[in-house]
């Protein structure tokens, strides 16, 4: 994008809470949370070629850890947030070691099985998670004494974290390590022959992606002030994956656009029909069959074609 577009985008994001009603401001916050989630998953799916179907684990773990520590231990947000991120990242280290014993579909099945284990545990370990009731009665943090209970303050909090997260992930992808990661996706054997430790590259990416998933999980629990096992379900993981693929995996903007599409679709659909799961299923089938490259690359291709047509010769 050109500098002008960046300035316009920044102004639009900064001015949005004054232009739109509270409902839309909250919707935008949800999009930010989903965007971090999808972008972190995209590190694995798009850049690493590792299709994970268990990414909701990180949202759920971080959210549960933070909620449990503040409810049952009475700790403040200043302590629970870093501890929840740390705990989730450590679990990601362990899960990554197991899941990366396989690649491709094996990886997908192991991540799915591991996340289902967490989901089942969240349902059944009632003494810790309150089972199907979920953990309720949570609060939002107040960084530097600024309360986040209003829609607008939370919007800017989520926006700031999202910008930081996307920037960090963009740097990760643009770094030499990111180049090595794409290398392990396209030519694992050659990368190995060139002296790269393919397993380690993948594992570091897995953990890094889990960390940002955990960040979106913290935002998620702050936003909802409530956490339920459904946040760990295969549906939640699939929503993220659908966002990545709908937007266009392996691009920076794709997962953000995809996440926005999913959040909007979910909100509008649930206003008119109850059948979100069925709709999501059809969207899945539709995207895979008719738009396998995703919206962002698809639109970009159309745009280039239009441009070429406008310029004669």
């Amino acid at each position, binding site marked *: 994008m050109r500098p002008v577009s960046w300035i316009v985008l920044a102004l639009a994001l900064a001015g949005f809470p004054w232009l739109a009603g509270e409902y839309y401001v909250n919707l935008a916050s949800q999009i930010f949370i989903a965007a971090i989630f999808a972008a972190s998953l995209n590190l694995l799916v798009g850049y690493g070629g590792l*299709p994970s*179907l268990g990414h909701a684990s990180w949202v759920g773990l971080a959210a549960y850890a933070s909620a449990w520590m503040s409810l049952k231990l009475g700790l403040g947000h200043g302590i629970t947030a870093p501890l929840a991120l740390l705990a989730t990242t450590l679990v990601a280290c362990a899960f990554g070691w*197991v899941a990366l*014993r*396989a690649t*491709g*579909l*094996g990886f*997908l*099945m*192991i991540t*799915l*099985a*591991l996340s*289902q*284990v967490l*989901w*089942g*545990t969240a349902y*059944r*370990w*009632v*003494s*810790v998670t309150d089972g199907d009731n979920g953990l309720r009665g949570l609060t939002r943090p107040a960084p530097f004494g600024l309360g986040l209970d209003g829609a607008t303050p939370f919007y800017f909090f989520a926006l700031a974290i999202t910008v930081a997260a996307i920037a960090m992930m963009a740097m990760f992808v643009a770094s030499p390590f990111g180049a090595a990661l794409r290398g392990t996706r396209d030519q694992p054997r050659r990368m190995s022959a060139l002296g790269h430790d393919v397993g380690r590259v993948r594992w570091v990416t897995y953990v890094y992606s889990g960390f940002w998933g955990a960040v979106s999980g913290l935002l998620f629990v702050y936003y909802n002030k409530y956490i339920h096992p459904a946040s760990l*379900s*295969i*549906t939640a993981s*699939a929503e993220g*994956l659908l966002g990545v*693929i709908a937007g266009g995996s392996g691009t920076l903007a794709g997962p953000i656009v995809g996440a926005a599409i999913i959040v909007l679709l979910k909100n509008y659909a649930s206003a008119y029909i109850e*059948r979100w*799961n*069925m709709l*999501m*299923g*059809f*969207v*899945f*089938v539709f995207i*895979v*069959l008719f738009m*396998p490259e995703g919206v962002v690359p698809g639109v970009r291709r159309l745009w280039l074609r239009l441009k070429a047509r406008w310029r004669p010769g």
Partner: protein
Amino acid sequence: MQYWIIQTLNSLALGGLLFLLAAGFSLIFGLMRIANLMHGALYMLGAYVGISVLKVVPNLWLAALIGGLLVAAFGGLIERFILRALAGNTLGQVLVTLGISFIIADSCLVVWGGDPIPVPAPVALQRPLVLGGVAFPTYRMVVLGIAIAAAIALHLLMDRTRLGAMIRAGVDDMQMARAVGIPVSRLFTIVFCLGAGLAGAGGIIGGPIMSAYPGLDADMLPLALIVVMLGGVGSLLGAFVGSFLIGAVYTFGTALLPDLAYVILFLPMIFVIAFRPRGLFGRQSA
């Protein structure tokens, strides 16, 4: 004593049901390289369809047969018209099966409602078998017998028939199988129907034990995945051993440590994957 006998039979019955589910999953994965994520949904669909069939024909075995055939036909249609369109795009195929599983699960919720529907066992098998003062739940033993019979039948199919030889050839080296004139794409449909039918029939046969409820698919799918990762993809023996292992771990885990049964469940999988990534009996890694 009585308690442990019941638990053991429970674990064996669950193992048998898991085998009906995992054998098809494993064959489909081994031959077609598709992780069929709607396998749990097909199991649930079978259970619900069976319930509707039971209202017309009050015979569980007939319902299992009809339901299994219907689910097999459904699976065949999906394979023929959707998965076939995505040949070569493995991730796309997996995602489509996931999307279809959401559609199936939500449709079941619309058609059959949100309350669990119990399935009565056949009247002749409802009374426990009393031997030496200890009662054995009859239906669970019958389920175990069915699973063993299915395992033997599948083994004979794979090992002794021309069709089985062709499937094995496809699993081992698809390009070579095509080159020598084996109609691999027809095998795909056959194996997919077979796997779907087994899962569907399993859903009804498991009905008297598990009943049918929304979320049954999400409960069964990870169990099937764990079984297959444990036993090794494409291996019938692996699916058989893995099913009974996971059935036992799950049943006894739930009985002894109900809170953490799900965590215990994945310990054997981690152990096997860590030391033998291709699974206990697998010849190819997933």
